[in-house]
């Protein structure tokens, strides 16, 4: 057997080791660390934290290459599936002050922009994390979607985006709670002013 097959096997092994190190299920957030401490006790949790530090140190030299392709090997598909969820509402206000719901998730009577809003990359901007609030692009999303609504509804003077807390039933299905969070409003005049400034 020549040198190349051995070298190739070595490189592949290295790639697998790096991937496994990157995908190691270590607690990432402070919240996860607290849970781990509660479950394992302080000594074992401290050991895990030390191992995680070592793992990070080993990966550090490779970070630029990994970041250039924006890769990781820790996969989480619906890792959490709690019963407290949200339902997004988008409302437009007319000059007389009345609010009309133009979009509400899974509502055939209020489905303006339903296709683009349901697209996974856009949903990534507006769907809140279960316990950690809205995502980084939420405010930009609200500004963008307000512009879209203003373009389509000349009578609208303001657009409001908010999340209704919903509770999933013990056997599935959901019910709205009437409680709203993460409310953001954009006025048409503000968006126009910004447009003029640019």
């Amino acid at each position, binding site marked *: 057997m020549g040198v190349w*097959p051995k070298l190739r096997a070595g490189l592949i092994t290295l790639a697998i080791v790096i991937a496994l190190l990157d995908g190691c299920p270590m607690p990432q957030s402070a919240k996860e660390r607290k849970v781990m401490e509660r479950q394992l006790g302080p000594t074992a949790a401290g050991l895990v934290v030390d191992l995680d530090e070592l793992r990070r140190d080993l990966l550090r030299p490779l970070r630029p290459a990994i970041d250039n392709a924006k890769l990781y090997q820790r996969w989480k598909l619906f890792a959490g*599936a709690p019963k407290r969820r949200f339902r997004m509402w988008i409302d437009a206000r007319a000059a007389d002050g009345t609010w009309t719901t133009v979009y509400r998730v899974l509502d055939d009577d209020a489905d303006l922009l339903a296709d683009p809003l349901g697209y996974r990359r*856009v949903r990534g901007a507006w769907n809140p994390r279960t316990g950690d609030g809205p995502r980084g692009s939420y405010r930009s999303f609200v500004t963008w979607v307000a512009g879209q609504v203003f373009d389509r509804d000349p009578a609208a003077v303001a657009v409001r985006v908010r999340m209704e807390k919903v509770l999933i039933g013990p056997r599935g299905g959901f019910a709205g709670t009437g409680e709203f969070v993460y409310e953001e409003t954009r006025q048409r005049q503000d968006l126009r002013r910004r447009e003029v400034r640019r």
Partner: protein
Amino acid sequence: MIRLLHAWVALWDRREPATAQVLVRIGVGLCLVFDLLWVRRHGLIEALWAPPPDGMAYAANRTLWAVRWFGASADAAEQMWWIATVAAAAFTIGLATRVAGVVYVLVAAQLAWLHPDGDRGIDIALRAVTLVMVCASGHARWSVDAWIRRRLGRPFPALVPAWPRLLLFGQVVWIYFSSGHNKTMPEWTPAGDLSALANVLSDPHFARYSADWVPAVYPLTQIATAVTMIFEWGAPLLFLLTWYHATADRPGRVRRLCNRLHLRWVWIATGVVFHVGIAIFLRLGIFPWGMLALYPVLLHPEELIRAEAWLRTRLTRSGTAA
């Protein structure tokens, strides 16, 4: 130990027909192209990758080479979309496949950095797969590259290195296993009444349909939750089941039992049902199709050859009949 090392080197030195790698190239490429065209069709290029207030690329800054080269604007987003789409299309048809793959990964990663919330797990998975495919021989058949090489009198060999397929096999197994051990919430276990899938199917932000029907089939969703956990935690067993299947003539009661029960096929079929179910009931975009595009790597090359021969016979027969 030396024998083990030799076996390890020999494993990665294997050669096989390129069919699985070719199917992955085409399947993954189609998913990428479809996704990018979807973005254009709905006028979302600027929305996703232009900085605020025009779009949601709140993370645009000069540490990104894309911002230094193209700037941060709607025009820059448009240019990057074109580069990514042309690269993905070239990758799919196998035109300058390796260069196209590298260009796609680099540009797609920059788009992901511009708008991190818009970069989902499947995007990361398909970037990783594309990078492996850059080193693979997925362009050895059914590609423009293969056609050009034939015209030049330097066709690709019939057998190509198998290691990219084996590595992707490991990647698929790891994606499932990692998904399994990251599901730490009680809803995925009997302690949480195995309610996870019912909750997911009822989540208005992800469900494709109104959740009114979910309570009626709640026990089924509990079974499906348990099967999902077994499927994901059991993913590493696929290595063993595949080995047993490939060495069916060797002795061993466990091997015989696994082969008799067709456990390898059961695992693969469960995966297919899992993803088709997701495609029917949830709105996760290209996720189920992107994952299914990787499934050819789970098959033995001979199985794909037999399937191809069967398909060709059927097509020839129907052509003759017509």
